[in-house]
């Protein structure tokens, strides 16, 4: 066990945890955007910045989602410096994705009313580049059908070579995890379309109720992975 102080509270926690994990366990709120407990910490959105003070009195900002706790650590999750930085980060996000409700709400929560950049700089991107979709596809689904392409300001989430995501199984996890709903998916009759990755899938019809319930490719992927019988997915979960 390790003893640390977060916002003046002395806390004992298991070694190996991150500051964010400990804070969340103790009901201390630290905002996050690119964090999801099902995924490896990534440290891209920087919103979870906290100020830590070392024993020699020197302080610095670290991302709490990545920083492993240590004995005697003193953490301030809402110091003046932390707040100033978070506000600027949210402003940068707002300037990129001015139309996104989740970002607007976040900004409001942090007291950022307006963007201090010139109106002509303000964009209406949907994607905040948190990479939750890419990481879910890789770490949870295990197919890596999409990835982050290009560098810097040209960075985007994309299927390989900006063409069809041939490895995609149509599971829609990317759609589910996206905080700004910018991945467009629709089921039309017996077909599922994910527009962003330029893919279409035939949906499986339940032998019992006759409803289309999941892409055949996804069911086959799960069946093969778990070594289930050939006819395992002939009926939908509701009719099983």
């Amino acid at each position: 066990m390790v003893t640390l102080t977060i916002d003046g509270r002395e806390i004992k926690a298991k070694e190996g945890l991150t500051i964010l994990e400990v804070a969340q366990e103790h009901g201390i709120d630290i905002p996050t955007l690119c964090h999801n407990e099902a995924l490896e910490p990534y440290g891209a959105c920087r919103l979870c910045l906290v100020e830590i003070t070392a024993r020699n009195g020197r302080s610095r900002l670290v991302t709490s989602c990545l920083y492993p706790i240590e004995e005697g650590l003193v953490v301030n999750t809402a110091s003046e410096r932390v707040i100033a930085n978070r506000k600027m980060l949210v402003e940068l996000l707002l300037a990129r994705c001015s139309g996104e409700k989740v970002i607007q709400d976040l900004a409001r929560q942090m007291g950022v009313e307006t963007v201090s950049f010139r109106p002509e700089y303000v964009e209406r991107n949907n994607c905040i580049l948190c990479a939750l979709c890419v990481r879910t596809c890789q770490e949870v689904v295990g197919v890596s059908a999409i990835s982050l392409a290009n560098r810097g300001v040209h960075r985007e989430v994309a299927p390989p070579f900006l063409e069809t995501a041939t490895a995609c199984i149509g599971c829609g996890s990317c759609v589910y995890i996206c905080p700004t709903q910018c991945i467009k998916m629709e089921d039309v009759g017996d077909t599922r379309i994910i527009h962003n990755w330029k893919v279409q899938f035939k949906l499986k019809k339940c032998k019992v109720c006759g409803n289309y319930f999941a892409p055949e490719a996804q069911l086959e992927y799960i069946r093969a992975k778990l070594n289930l019988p050939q006819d395992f997915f002939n009926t939908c979960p509701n009719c099983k």
Partner: protein
Amino acid sequence: MQVKETSTRIASRQELEDFRRLIVARRDPGRTCIAICTGTGCHAYDCLGLVAAFREEIQRRQLQDRVDITATGCRGFCERGALLTIYPQRIFYQQVKPEDVSEIISQTIIGGNVIDRLLYSDPNTKELFVHQEDVPFYRKQQRLLLGNNNRIDPTSIEDYLAVGGYTALSKSLFELSPKQIMDEVKRSGLRGRGGGGFPTAVKWESARRAEGSPKYVIGNCDEGDPGAYMDRSLMEGNPHSVLEGMIIGAYTIGASIGYVYVRHEYPLAVTNVTMAIKQAEEYGLLGENILGSGFDFRVKVSRGGGAFVCGESTALMASLEGKVGEPRAKYVHTAEKGLYGKPSNLNNVETWANVPLIVLNGADWYNKIGTKGSKGTKIFSLVGKVNNTGLVEVPMGTTLREIIHDIGGGIREGKKFKSVQTGGPSGGFIPESLLDMPVDFDELTKVGSMMGSGGMIVMDEDNCMVDMAKYFLTFLEEESCGKCLPCREGIKRMLQILTDITRGKGREEDIAQLERLSDNLIDSSLCALGGTAPNPILTTIRYFRDEYVAHIKDRRCPAGVCKDLITYFIVDDKCPGCGLCIKSCPKEAITFVAKKKPVILDQSLCIKCGACRDICKLGAIGVK
């Protein structure tokens, strides 16, 4: 000339010394050798054509038994390429062309006369210099790392052995324990040459203590700064010195595998280091049971794809693993969990090249060179508006003025110095008032810049500081990996603001906004690329605020650079009507009024390319 049977590995320390004696004994120190620089800079001056011309001429005159030709690595004085030295007299010729070869052979090699035309002549005093070390460019330098580039053929391990190469390695393996080497490096005060200036021994110690196997050592030759080529020249000109340092480091840390990460745009560096590794393996200096000591170590070469961010250690390691070169947080140090999650020690190639010198000559010798906090020498790539561009190796603590004026020969065309930018694209701009500051890690940081890997770009009165900040931010915007929000979005916004300022659309609050954004990048970026990206902006605001104010308030570019804020005009009383400007104008904006009379410039056609101003040597094209 190779004297060794390549199938025999050197199996002991004694054998190495015997072999070295054999190489030296077979070489006649009195024999004529023409050592021609074939470094990157001299390639532009057709040094390869020069080498071929010498070979042909020597063949034609049947002098092969009397004269050797050595193609060496970079000698540093790139402004005056192609360079060569004739041994044993050490006659130093510069600006040599293939058509000079015949004269050099008949006059100097056969006749024993020095050709004055090919000597370096001081532009001010017209004094001629026969020997390289007397030339002002070299006089204040201390070329500990680059010195051997003068003489050795980088593709010959025997050349390196002949100058004492691998002695430090055998001393390390047979005389010193890893702890003793560590202590020596610690006492030497060596700090990392890649940018951060982190104490090398501290890094080594963490990697040595870390648990895990195998351990890795990595040589970082991903030199990405525009205009910088220190690491390249070491790798191309003396790859064995880097390898020797890495082997000693690996022995100290307990590593068994090494990687040299070198950018693919450096084909000669890739070729030479690959060849050096192969030779070292053949000679028993790499691989299993090195020199019979029982120590095993292998090195592989990995080529980088050219991303600037891959010079950052964690991004480099990701790239080595075949992943996208993006940095990760270093809260768990790479010394503990680096490449493939194993203890890894990464140093810049210049750092590695220092190691054999320290082992051989001792910490007490090394730490006498340099300043209190920065020991040894540093190689700088001196470029920009300076007379003598090239690679400069000076003791830490040499002043900027000495580097720029004494070694660099001052500013081109007698113009006025304005600023020097050190440390690569995310370094800071240093003004004239600070020229007497000693250059070392800590002093550069104090003034808002950094050592970086040693880039030094000199600017004169014709450079606009806002435009320069914009230039480097453009580079950084392209090279940011885009993973973390402040670096990707923050640099974009800073660049937009700077662009607007240079276009005459600046606002008074812009400076404060740039400072706010800078604070955010410094505090919250994931890696040093974002953390240092504001340096060009912060230092130009700090030292050249008046230029920002002129752009924003007066809509004026004092240096006459920012196109939207300037007008070219003809200075009638200086214009003789020669018509050169008319020929240079791509838009036919300049016309004769009458022959041999001043010309006129049509503002509605002028695209402000500046071609007329560049070509007119009489100052008859003004800019306001």
